[in-house]
């Protein structure tokens, strides 16, 4: 039994193999999501990222090592409901997580499952929809929303559960660049409102706002550190199976030519500030 106080979610030497598969999806993985931080989990397809997401919510149980959420062991069935009401999960395909035809009814689905009184549900739905900017569309058909809006609806559905930890499993992979930008902006707002975030992605450009980064490859950890440290080890990124976004490349080129200093992060604002003081 692990009791990591201050850890929202803790993986200790976790191993996992899907039934019938000879290749393990996770191998000896140890890391923590600290309460209140934004942790980005980065990796190519097939690196084991989604397996991690499902473990945070006890949808999968480690075959080796252990995984605990707010000190609750995910292996104990008695903890199931408590864990799931503390961890909000947003999946890759927004279309496969929306259950109702009307926006507000979909957001209400989670709180209804918790057995909350109607007034409480109503206020949670309102708050969640306001947070993701869909309050005006509360009576719209879910089908009529754009991909980006659908994904923010899925986020609202998770938020209405009032989770302490938000896990986003490749939540931006299927939406267009504009929707992606709006989604990441929402994350930044949630972060400043004090939510703990575990963001799983393969896009380096989306982790700029994160506090720390863990990189997975072949089901095991190959990097842990701050985003800036990761950007600075650009040469290794290719080997980790991660694409280098143009701004990171530009930052590197500017560094090589001695035009900026190493503490400048690869964002538009920071680079502008460094180049035109």
């Amino acid at each position, binding site marked *: 039994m692990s009791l990591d106080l201050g850890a929202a979610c803790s993986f200790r030497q976790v191993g996992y193999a899907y039934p019938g598969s000879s290749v393990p999806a996770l191998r000896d993985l140890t890391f923590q999501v600290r309460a209140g931080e934004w942790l980005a989990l980065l990796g190519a397809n097939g690196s084991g990222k989604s397996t991690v997401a499902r473990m945070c919510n006890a949808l999968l149980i480690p075959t080796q090592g252990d995984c605990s959420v707010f000190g609750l062991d995910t292996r104990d069935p008695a903890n199931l409901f408590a864990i799931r009401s503390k961890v909000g999960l947003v999946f890759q395909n927004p279309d*496969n997580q929306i259950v109702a035809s009307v926006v507000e009814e979909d957001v209400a*689905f989670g*709180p209804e499952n918790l057995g909350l*009184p*109607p007034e409480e549900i109503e206020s949670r739905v309102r708050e969640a929809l306001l947070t993701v900017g869909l309050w005006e569309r509360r009576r719209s058909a879910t*089908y009529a929303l754009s991909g980006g809006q659908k994904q923010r609806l899925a986020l609202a*559905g998770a938020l209405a559960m009032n989770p302490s930890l938000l896990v986003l499993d490749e939540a931006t992979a299927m939406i267009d660049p504009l929707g992606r930008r709006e989604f990441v902006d929402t994350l930044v707002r949630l972060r400043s409102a004090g939510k703990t975030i575990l963001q799983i992605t393969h896009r380096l450009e989306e982790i700029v706002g994160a506090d720390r980064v863990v990189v997975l490859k072949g089901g095991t950890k190959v990097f842990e550190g701050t985003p800036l440290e990761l950007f600075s080890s650009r040469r290794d990124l290719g080997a980790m199976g991660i694409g280098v976004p143009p701004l990171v490349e530009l930052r590197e080129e500017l560094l090589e030519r001695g035009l900026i200093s190493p503490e400048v992060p690869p964002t538009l604002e920071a680079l502008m500030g460094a180049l035109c003081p």
Partner: protein
Amino acid sequence: HSLDPRTKILSTLVLLFALFGVRDPRFFLGWGVLLAFIVFLSRVSLRTVLRSVRPVLWLLVFTVLLHALFTPGEAILRFHFIKVSREGLHMAALMGVRLVLLVAFAGLLTLTTSPMELADGMESLMSPLARVRFPAHEMAMMMTIALRFIPTLLEETDRILKAQISRGADLEGGGVVKRLRAFVPVLVPLFLIVFQRAEDLALAMESRCYVGGVGRTRMRPLRWCLEDWVALGLMSVSVAGLLFLERAVG
């Protein structure tokens, strides 16, 4: 309009069953008035209600003709080998008007009640059956989800159809069997998509603490208030009244 969906479902059922008790076509006039009155109360335009009859129009014509022409009895009109009997006309009128009223009342229910409300109402009405292990909650939940996925799957079907046509699949020509074979490349991917989506959806539902109907609450619980008693009462009384009147006069 604002009545509890349970009231509307029950009233419609009462009406539909009662319509089969009518034997004299002339008394449909009374029913017509009742329909008009409910339509007036529900603030749906009469035209919209009548439009709901349109899909069954050819069926209506067919039924009426069938009865008019083939009911044996005293002939009042002859045209070569076609004869129309008094009984035939009677039956035709009875069947025709009954069908129109049936469809109109059923149409009225669906016009004033969203499918979601219908699902909620049915769940609640059937919940006593849960004791004999009838899955009332699961049915309603499935109906809600199915409604949400119909447009999505229509779009998928369209996309798969177009993709296979682009690869030269010929869905237009050939006999029935050949065409059915041509649909395998559509049915198979669609089922795989259904299967995949269902797996993902189940995970998403579980992660939002779905464990079935027990202990679940609703954001907008159904409220059965005085008006519902009154409406249901009025409806039963007028239906019984009309049936009684017919028997009394007949």
